[in-house]
């Protein structure tokens, strides 16, 4: 019998009693911890942020209009639809699955919107509901096939890609392309609605206050429980950093048209998804299933429900993305959601830092990734390069992101960070 009840060292928090732990405290300690994590292969969003800086620098040198406020506003407007689809991709990737049908699902929902609203004249809310419902149904079918027959999601959703494209063409019927009237609410939302400057700053302030408040409350509770907590100085520094970052971005966008309503909606969805992933049982079970399905099952998690919920959410986000794309384009046609929509959404999630191997990633990777992809698109378009260059560059960036993902996975294994 060894030391059953070692006395607690009162000078240290409960979670830092072990003498093997290296202690860092204060602001400098936080910085040093960060450095250590990076060397251990826990790169977080550093590679993508560095990549974005390089991409922006190169395009700015090649075309001084690239980083203009006007162009960045366009960039955010282009990002909203694909970014929303990418949130769903992040979810399926966290499970270690894939969904190749998101482009088709978004195309189908565009088609339902255009046909229902313009051709048949149904009320807009009903049509929106029908479009989203189509997404939910597609996700249910995928989830059912995945859980009941164990078919790999790659194959199921590849079938879905074709089948749902067929449905999209069926819905459109003989009409090749349907224009949605410019004065309709949905197109106004997609093209014309921008947050007034005051409300965009209010939102930024609100976000920072909620962030800081949340961290302070957490720190106080940890301290009360005898656990180590971030000192108030570090929290204030982080909050100030966030305030400067968001405030500067908003200010710069406000020099031109400002923050578009679709982009704001996209960001809100990312934050909500992040909350559900990190702070709820459902989110924890998504990570657990992505890390080790068998362990999750033995822990009593209803694995099938997790799979189905994630496939449904992914298709739902895809349908919503389709609506946003149709609203921005003010039309829907047989190629809506086709072309590079699929690849862009998947590439965005991976480039943003969500692992293809499951169990690792964050909703915010949808934002970072989609901004990288759209920067490349927009930069190359400004240079009047042909679309083949864009495909090649986007493909190369995706491969680079996957290589970084695999490399950091190996480094993590070596450094014992899972």
């Amino acid at each position, binding site marked *: 019998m060894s030391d*059953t*009840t070692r006395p607690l060292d009162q000078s240290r928090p409960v979670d830092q009693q072990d003498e093997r732990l290296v202690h860092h405290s204060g602001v400098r300690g936080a910085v040093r911890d960060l450095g250590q994590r990076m060397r251990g292969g826990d790169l977080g969003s550093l590679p993508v942020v560095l990549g974005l800086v390089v991409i922006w620098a190169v395009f700015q040198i090649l075309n001084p209009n690239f980083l203009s406020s006007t162009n960045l506003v366009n960039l955010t407007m282009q990002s909203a639809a694909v970014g929303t689809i990418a949130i769903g991709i992040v979810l399926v990737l966290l499970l270690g699955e894939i969904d190749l049908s998101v482009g088709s699902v978004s195309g189908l929902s565009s088609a339902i919107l255009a046909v229902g609203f313009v051709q048949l004249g149904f009320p807009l809310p009903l049509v929106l509901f029908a479009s989203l419902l189509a997404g939910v149904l597609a996700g249910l079918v995928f989830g059912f096939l995945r859980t009941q027959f164990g078919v790999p999601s790659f194959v199921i959703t590849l079938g879905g890609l074709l089948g749902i494209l067929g449905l999209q063409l069926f819905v459109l019927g003989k009409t090749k392309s349907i224009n949605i009237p410019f004065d309709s609410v949905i197109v106004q939302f997609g093209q014309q609605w921008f947050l007034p400057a005051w409300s965009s700053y209010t939102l930024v302030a609100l976000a920072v206050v909620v962030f800081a408040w949340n961290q302070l409350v957490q720190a106080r509770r940890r301290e009360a*429980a005898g*656990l180590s907590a971030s000192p108030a100085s570090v929290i204030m520094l982080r909050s100030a950093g966030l305030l400067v970052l968001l405030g500067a971005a908003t200010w710069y966008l406000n020099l031109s048209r400002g923050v578009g309503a679709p982009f704001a909606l996209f960001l809100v969805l990312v934050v909500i998804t992040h909350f559900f992933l990190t702070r709820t049982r459902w989110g924890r079970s998504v990570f657990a299933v992505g890390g080790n399905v068998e*362990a999750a099952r033995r822990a009593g998690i209803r694995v099938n429900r997790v799979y189905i919920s994630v496939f449904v959410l992914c298709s739902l986000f895809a349908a919503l993305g389709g609506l946003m794309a149709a609203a921005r384009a003010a039309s829907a046609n047989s190629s809506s959601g086709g072309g590079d929509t699929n690849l862009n959404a998947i590439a965005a999630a991976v480039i943003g830092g969500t692992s293809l191997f499951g169990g690792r990633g964050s909703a915010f990777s949808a934002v970072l990734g989609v901004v990288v992809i759209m920067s490349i698109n927009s930069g190359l378009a400004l240079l009047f390069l042909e679309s083949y260059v864009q495909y090649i560059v986007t493909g190369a960036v995706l491969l680079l992101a996957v290589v970084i993902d695999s490399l950091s996975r190996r480094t993590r294994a070596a450094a014992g960070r*899972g």
Partner: protein
Amino acid sequence: MTNTTTREQLLSLRGITKRFGAVRALSGVDLDVYAGEVVAIVGDNGAGKSTLVKILAGVHPQDAGTISFGGVPTAIPTPTDSRDLGIATVYQDLSLCDNLDVVSNLWLGRELRKGGALDEVEMEMRSWTLLRELSARIPSVRIPVASLSGGQRQTVAIARSLIGEPNVVILDEPTAALGVAQTAEVLNLIERLRERGLGVILISHNIADVQAVADRIVVLRLGRNNGDFRVADVTSEMIIAAITGASDNSRSA
């Protein structure tokens, strides 16, 4: 060491039989587990140890025989039923999620909530309390489980089984892949479980480990009981003889 007759009987198996096709994995096996007692189940490969564990864990239902829990006859058709009865099973392959930290693994599937959101502070605090009670030496509970040593991972797996406040803990080969010091760590932990008044079922190949920690040793051979010894009255030669079949201790043929 432990007087089983005065203790509360937790689990009682009578005549458990299980077939897989033409193979009779278990035929008429009996097993009793009392509170505050470590029962080791030993036997050669194919003796039916794992099958017995799976029946208790609700993975396979038995074909014949009765299980009573706390004196009440019961059935264990699913893993959830097993858990609800208060039986916690720690599998050989650990079943931890490498990408999650120690706290998340300990509370997986049983997370504490506060106003709908996860209560990380409470979970972390209780994790430390539990680990301290078990004298487990985990440096930090906020690192991914992948970075822990084999013994520490086994400790986390066993500690996790205690979160649901079970009455019986089944450990399937807990020391199989561990070094000397780590094995000692896990054996210490098993004694801690006994001190908490739990019934512990220990499946092991290692006679030395079994003799170090068990109160009673149940030998299975080819799916039948082949001896039920008190550790105090038995030598390792006698156990090995029972395992290999050199001595026949089965009650009836």
